[in-house]
């Protein structure tokens, strides 16, 4: 049985309640009871669903023995209790459960349920129970720039900027330098560049 309340972030654009809420917010905007960025933020909040929410005080029976599909319960800090501790029989299908503790007796199918924390390189790393980094949350970004994915290579002091951002800027500089060297040694390419009116 699909859990209507908690599936797809609880946002059902076809429901009358959601339609009414949209109309209400629009009327508040037009009558200047709220300003645009408040209107926009409330719309986003309505769609955002359960991210960063604490549901531990909810009733377990509202969850028990249901399927929850495509929702985000992600938390900012690793190993956060989100659900009622006595919740059982819930199958999470393709949900984002990062940093969520899942009570025993429930199942996760697909989606993600990693625990991660920002490290000194300003990137998110999957951490163990002692909060020690194990691997980057998005390892493909490290691969792209040939950066080490070994947690021992994380900077001992906090970087001001993401290591990925730094690597990206260095790559842009290196590419530009390579292009300049290529063009400088090739009169045909140099003529093409001059005629194009573009900068390197």
């Amino acid at each position: 049985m699909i859990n209507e309340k908690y599936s797809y972030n609880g946002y059902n654009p076809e429901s009358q309640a959601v339609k009414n809420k949209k109309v209400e917010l629009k009327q508040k905007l037009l009558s200047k009871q709220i300003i645009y960025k408040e209107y926009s933020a409330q719309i986003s909040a309505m769609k955002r669903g359960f991210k960063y929410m604490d549901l531990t005080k909810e009733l377990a029976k509202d969850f028990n023995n249901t399927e929850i599909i495509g929702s985000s319960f992600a938390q900012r800090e690793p190993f956060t209790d989100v659900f009622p501790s006595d919740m059982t029989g819930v199958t999470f299908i393709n949900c984002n459960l990062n940093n969520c503790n899942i009570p025993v007796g429930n199942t996760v199918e697909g989606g993600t349920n990693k625990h991660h924390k920002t490290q000194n390189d300003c990137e998110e790393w999957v951490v163990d129970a002692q909060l020690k980094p194990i691997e980057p949350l998005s390892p493909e970004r490290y691969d792209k720039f040939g950066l080490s994915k070994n947690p021992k290579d994380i900077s001992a002091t906090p970087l001001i900027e993401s290591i990925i951002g730094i690597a990206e800027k260095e790559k842009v500089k290196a590419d530009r330098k390579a292009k300049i060297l290529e063009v400088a040694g090739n009169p045909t390419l140099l003529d093409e560049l001059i005629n194009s009116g573009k900068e390197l």
Partner: protein
Amino acid sequence: MAINDYFHVTAAGAGDKSGDSWANAMDEAAFKAHLEGAVVAGDVHFVKDDTYTLDSSIDSSARSGTAVSPIVIIGVKSGTTNEGANVAYSDWSRDAADRPFFDCVTFKITTGDYYVLRNLSLEGSDTEVLEVGLVNIVENCKGYNDSGVANHDCLKTGTYGNVINCEIESESGDGIAAGSYSNVSFCYIHDCDNAGYAGIKISSNICDLAFNILDNCAIGISSSSRDVIQVLNHTFYGCGVDVNETNGYGWSCINNLHEGSTTDGYKWTTQTDINFFWKNHGNDARCNDMWDLVDTTTVFQDYEVSTGDPKFTTPGSDFSLQDSSPNIDNGMGISLGV
């Protein structure tokens, strides 16, 4: 434009999830797989208003459109029944309330080159929420980076990026990191208020910025040694520094309205006089230091600067001007007698 095929996307998906109709709509997972491994130039995707939760990044940087056949992603209203070529403009999610919402959580969406993204709302906490490649158009979208980590930006454009009519917010990084030859216009960029970060960060030369509102940003427009930038018809409200540059040249700053800057209106680290300022509005009384290392005494100054209360309808929320505003009919227009 040469359209290759149409695809339909809903949060739950339907049927065989091939996307060929609403009855076979892709879900988020199928959409991601399609964008990363199958999309080709000329593909048009209609994404219904709903919440799409990412459990990993969507990276279609290896798949690009072309100038004549871009890859298109358009948000449409939840009740849309029209399909393919029959989807009408009236189906589009033009209102903020109807935009499909991509909850990127700790992940991001990266596109290849030649994409058109319209009517989408994206929120996340990665280094960017959305990163687009070369020659992209992002229109009527909302982006919000909710990360508490510095330098995590909202939107990053490649060369020839176009960001039009978008709402942008970033908790701790820049709102828009604009690549070379980019155009940012008619955007509402607000609350990018982490010290040292900007609503618009210009990361290379030659950008056109026009008709944007920069509201409560630590820096409105920021760059370092970037040249040939046009800053036209902006409203800066309650920012720290409105326009911050080191020694860039070839800038044209015209018809901008500055109000409530807490540190500077225009700030250059090294006075660089081959820049053009004309018909801007603001003074030290209302912007602390309106011209910081910008010439105010010789031929390079803004001789037509205006001052005083600009008389917004509601300062901080409704930036339209009252009839009594000194800025009405006071901007630069054609003055050649034609």
